[in-house]
């Protein structure tokens, strides 16, 4: 048996799994996106109606804009928090034992389902919820704040809460690999703390930041349930558009939206990967 054949055989199981469960479904979605639909059934066709309607409707643009808005704001916040947490764990906590312990502490909330973590915000932020009653009893506000819940604020809060760990983990991983002598060298060379951060640590964390960014943007852009629950169904992103279509049996239209979303997300990831060559850096 030649070496090449062995290699092919070794790769085959994974390739088959991916083909059956990733590639085939996507191809199916693309095909169905050209089909037609009636109230209660879908029929094979090759028509551009779904795309025509999608690109012709002002709702699509609003909704895509919203999706990007959520992704961008969530990215900035998760990056800021995630980077800070990782920095603290790596450089401020000295013993490995404590680093591991504190890192595990960060993951504890993830032992429950993310839907439960999300929904638990609702009674907290509600009009008569904990946040409002505490603020009122402190005398900070007189009237309950309505924008705490069922608003863009609560949607983004939930996103940040749910996805910050996805930023912490890869950045922490990158930071732990930084050779400490590089930081000493920077200090010896007369660099201030901020300069070290900017010229040494951040560049070396780029792969981690990039991986975290990919996680967060794809998760936020593909989400529908967080937006639905935290906005009280009052806001929409692309995921909700798709889920609405599905619940109304409009599979072809849902597929078309899904294809456009997939392409958009792939473009975003493509751009991100141009900024940092993850393979090389890893």
């Amino acid at each position, binding site marked *: 048996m030649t070496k090449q054949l062995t290699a092919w055989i070794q790769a085959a199981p994974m390739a088959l799994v991916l083909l059956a469960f990733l590639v085939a479904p996507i191809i199916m979605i693309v095909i169905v996106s050209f089909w037609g639909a009636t*109230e209660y059934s879908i029929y094979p066709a090759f028509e551009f109606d779904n795309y025509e309607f999608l690109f012709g409707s*002002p709702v699509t643009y609003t*909704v895509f804009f919203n999706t990007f808005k959520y992704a961008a704001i969530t990215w900035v916040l998760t990056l800021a928090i995630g980077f800070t947490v990782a920095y603290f764990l790596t450089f401020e906590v000295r013993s490995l034992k404590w680093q591991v312990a504190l890192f595990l502490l960060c993951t504890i909330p993830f032992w429950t389902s993310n839907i439960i973590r999300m929904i638990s915000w609702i009674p907290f932020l509600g009009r008569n919820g904990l946040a409002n009653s505490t603020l009122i009893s402190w005398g900070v506000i007189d009237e309950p704040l309505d924008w705490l819940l069922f608003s863009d604020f609560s949607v983004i809060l939930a996103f940040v809460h749910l996805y910050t760990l996805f930023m912490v983990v890869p950045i922490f991983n990158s930071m732990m690999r930084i050779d400490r002598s590089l930081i000493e060298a920077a200090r010896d060379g007369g660099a201030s703390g901020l300069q070290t951060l900017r010229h040494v640590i951040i560049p070396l964390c780029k792969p981690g930041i990039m991986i975290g960014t990919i996680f967060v943007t794809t998760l936020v852009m593909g989400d529908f349930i967080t937006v639905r629950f935290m*906005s*009280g169904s*009052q806001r929409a992103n692309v995921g909700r558009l798709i889920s609405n279509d*599905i*619940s*109304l049996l409009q599979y072809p239209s849902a597929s078309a939206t899904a294809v456009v979303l997939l392409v958009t997300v792939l473009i975003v990831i493509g751009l991100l990967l141009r900024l940092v060559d993850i393979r090389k850096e890893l």
Partner: protein
Amino acid sequence: MTTISKIRYSRRSLLKAGGAAIAASAFPAPMVWGQESKNITLRQFGTGVSNLNEVATKVKEELGITLEMTALDTDSVTQRAATQPDSFDIADIEYFVAKKVWPSGNLQAMDASKIDNYDKIVGIFRNGKLTPDSTIAQGTAPHTVGFVEGPNATDFVDNESGWMTLIPTIYNADTLGIRPDLIGRPITNWSELLNPEFKGKASILDISSIGIMDMAMVVESMGEMTYGDKGNMTREEIDKTFAIFTEAKKNGQFRAFWKTFDESVNLMASGEVVIQSMWSPAITAVKSRGIPCVYQPLEEGYRSWGGGIGLSNSLSGMELDAAYEYINWYLSGWVGGFLMRQGYYSAVPETSKNFMSENEWGYWFEGKQATDTITSPFGDALAQAGEVRDGGSFTDRMGAVACWNSVMDENQYMVRKWNEFIAA
């Protein structure tokens, strides 16, 4: 939507699984109806309202038939009936869903002559009239989609042909729910939903086919427009309705929209919302937490809905016989009593009467003052002696129906507009 229904019903399904197991072991099937049906399993799905574990337990006890129930939300129910005909034997669906699903050929018509209590089924489901001189409300009135010409016919007929699409099981008249303690004044019209007084404290349900009807009731009540038929709007009517509601949404009238029963209960109970579209058992659920909540009868009348049982087209032979047996049992009274004690109505009220106390029958059906505490079948106290049901008697409530839940000819257009409204 599967994720949502899973959360929504996980507790119930757990109970169901447990309950069924207990039922199977504690009540070995008595051989009242013969051996054959004992080993038959029928798979039923429907919305949470009538897919009750207690019914499965009771049917196992009395008929020996095992009923496997799946509870889904309204949209998922339609989806399943239309797209997965082999996944069920019995579809427990709403009449307006039938209009959508029947043409798919997934259901078979039922022979009315095999239904023992057919003659006792209330007029609404047969000729559309509650009493001989009542007028038929707008929308998809159940009798208009209740009959077809023959066993394999696909078109609905407007007479009692003897072949039924659905056997009516449960129905009610819906209106707005309010928190009287937080509003502090009488509410008498649908238009109050958009009253700026309740800015940021109103809600409407995010199920397009039902929500649009509530919207129409509101718009008509505001005097903005009179619809030709609220159940079958023209594009202009749809546009204008959404224009009014989109403006209200942008002005911050709504706190949230709800899609599942639980959400509506939580919105009301937590005080986030003081006036909203609501379903009768949700009012009960709020009340049973000790929070005042009224199912407010309004001058313009009710928006009504009805559900029924349909048989899968693939059902035949012994299973089909068992299904008829189940249907006859369903209409024989026990289920009716069980449903009516929660505030719904049964298709054959007179058989249900035997399964209710005089006090219960008086309160729920006749609109009389309760003579003693009214409790739900689950043991919660719903009303005290001296209280009267919101809206009064059966004929008062069902006689004041302004429109039925429906599917309109312009449904796809409406759905797109609905999506715009949500995204606006």
